[in-house]
């Protein structure tokens, strides 16, 4: 959702690049975009328009699918990058990139002496600092960033509360400590730790972390003769006020040849997971099982909690099953998954059936670029209707509910689910502890990395509570009309 300027600027840029690509003017006009956005004599949010233009150039590189860290020649024009993006056959990892020019390198240490400091006689900050990192100079305390170890004692002892804690938003929100400063003080993602949840991207006030987009690849295929099929995550229905059939119709107007609900694959996931749950937990040795449809969670287990792996269900995700089914039906079609999730990009790169991933905000911007208003789109009903169990996946609790619905009547009462509604360092500690000491009243853990479930994902358009409410209404009214 756009509750800050950074997100709006990002979406205006996605819209512009989409427009140029749809209209076949990308290679010719792309180098002008940074200049149009920041004309001479205009305002800039940085030191000057030239810096803003430089950062915009990097943003566009990422929109074209390139990693900023891979830049070798600063003189390589956007036009050259655009040509490469239009010619390439495959997209590659990783999925997030840091625009170090945009990173303001927030702070070196988290404690800061404000003007409230009176340079008092007592100077408890100096006396209590275990590293001797504080000195009084020009009547005020100063923290030496080379000596400070972020213990926070100075803040606790200051009688004027003059010392404050200054967070580094991306570092604070990352649940796995994958983002930190390099030697130049700029943020840098360690891809051996990164779970691709996208929280850092959402939270950065300078929008310095961006996705490597597949926008160009998708639009190129939409303009070609190949059959292109959209597979949309059920969370999409919460992203616009219009009914699902109008959203599907708008997708067709973009140039997709067909649209399918990923809720169809979610039914398969729930069904398989119910069988696995019965075998492994109700009749087997496992004290509990966790869901496996959230790709950032699965990545987190792989990289950070390997001891939890044996508790995670082996069922594949809704995206996988839907793509598998469509690949069988349409072996030569291009399959594009439309998703609120950054981690799905990574899952798709390793999935043999999905070709591309488009985020919800990219889809929204493509609608704007083509002048499509969802409310006035011609309705289109996807050929296969999904069941409410699959459609409930994007809201926290939906996966457990679906699992319950696929268990036999006798087994339903034996399901004791627990949701993990958003992953942070605390929930990781909890999950780790469960491998040694399972919670007595829990035998199924539904883990959603994003708070609220997928409706709270990093690239959503609607407020999660509005999306959840719409999805629930959609499910209820559709069931009534069956």
């Amino acid at each position, binding site marked *: 959702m756009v509750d800050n300027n950074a997100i709006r600027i990002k*979406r*205006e840029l996605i819209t512009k690049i989409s427009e140029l690509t749809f209209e076949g003017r990308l290679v010719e006009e792309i180098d002008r975009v940074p200049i149009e956005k920041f004309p001479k004599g205009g305002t800039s949010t940085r030191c000057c328009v030239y810096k803003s233009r430089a950062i915009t150039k990097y943003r566009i590189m990422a929109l074209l699918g390139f990693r900023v860290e891979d830049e070798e020649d600063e003189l390589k024009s956007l036009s050259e990058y655009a040509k490469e993006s239009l010619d390439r056959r495959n997209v590659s990892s990783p999925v997030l990139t840091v625009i170090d020019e945009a990173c303001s390198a927030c702070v070196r240490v988290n404690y800061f002496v404000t003007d409230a400091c009176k340079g008092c006689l007592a100077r408890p900050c100096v006396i209590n600092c275990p590293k001797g990192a504080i000195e009084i100079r020009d009547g005020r305390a100063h923290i030496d960033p080379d000596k400070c170890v972020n213990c926070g004692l100075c803040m606790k002892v200051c009688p004027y509360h003059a010392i404050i804690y200054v967070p580094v938003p991306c570092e604070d929100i990352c649940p796995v400590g994958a983002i930190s400063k390099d030697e130049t003080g700029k943020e840098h993602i360690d891809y051996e730790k990164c779970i691709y949840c996208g929280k850092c991207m959402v939270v950065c006030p300078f929008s310095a972390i961006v996705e490597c987009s597949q926008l160009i690849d998708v639009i190129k295929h939409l303009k070609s003769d190949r059959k292109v099929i959209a597979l949309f995550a059920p969370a999409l229905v919460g992203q616009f006020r219009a009914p699902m059939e109008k959203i599907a119709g708008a997708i067709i107007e973009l140039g997709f040849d067909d649209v399918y609900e990923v809720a169809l694959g979610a039914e398969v996931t729930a069904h398989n997971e119910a069988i696995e749950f019965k075998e492994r937990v109700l009749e087997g040795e496992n004290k509990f099982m966790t869901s496996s449809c959230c790709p950032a969670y699965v990545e987190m287990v792989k990289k950070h909690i390997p001891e939890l792996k044996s508790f995670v269900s082996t069922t594949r995700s809704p995206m996988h099953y839907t793509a598998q089914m469509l690949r069988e039906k349409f072996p030569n079609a291009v399959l594009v998954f439309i998703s609120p999730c950054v981690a799905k990009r990574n899952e798709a790169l390793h999935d043999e059936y999905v070709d591309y991933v488009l985020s919800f905000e990219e889809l*929204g*911007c493509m609608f704007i670029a083509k002048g499509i208003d969802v409310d006035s789109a011609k309705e289109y009903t996807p050929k296969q209707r999904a069941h409410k169990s699959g459609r409930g996946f994007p809201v926290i609790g939906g996966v457990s509910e679906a699992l319950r619905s696929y268990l036999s009547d006798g087994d339903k009462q034996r399901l004791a689910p627990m949701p993990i509604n958003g992953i942070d360092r605390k929930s990781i500690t909890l999950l780790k502890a469960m491998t040694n000491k399972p919670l007595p009243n829990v035998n199924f853990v539904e883990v959603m990395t994003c708070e609220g479930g997928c409706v709270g994902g990093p690239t959503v358009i609607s*407020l999660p509570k509005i999306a959840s409410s719409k999805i629930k209404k959609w499910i209820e009214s559709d069931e009534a009309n069956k």
Partner: protein
Amino acid sequence: MKGKITVQICTGTSCYVLGGASLLDLEKNLSEDLKKKVEIKGATCFGFCKDKKYGKPPFVLVENELVSEADLHKVIKKIMQYVDKVVG
């Protein structure tokens, strides 16, 4: 002026994607007093996005006055102008 001040937030696709979606939550940022004086609703595309002279989306109509490139601050400022008119 009797009745509440109407605030219509355009939920046409352009406006919605570029900020209208978050503005729907506007009410929680109003004081209790102001909440009683205002009626907030979403509206389908007004068509302002079609002509550049109206400015950039997202668009919000406070009574009949247009707020372009709307954000929380601008909308509340415009609402306050109407509140002052009623009181004054």
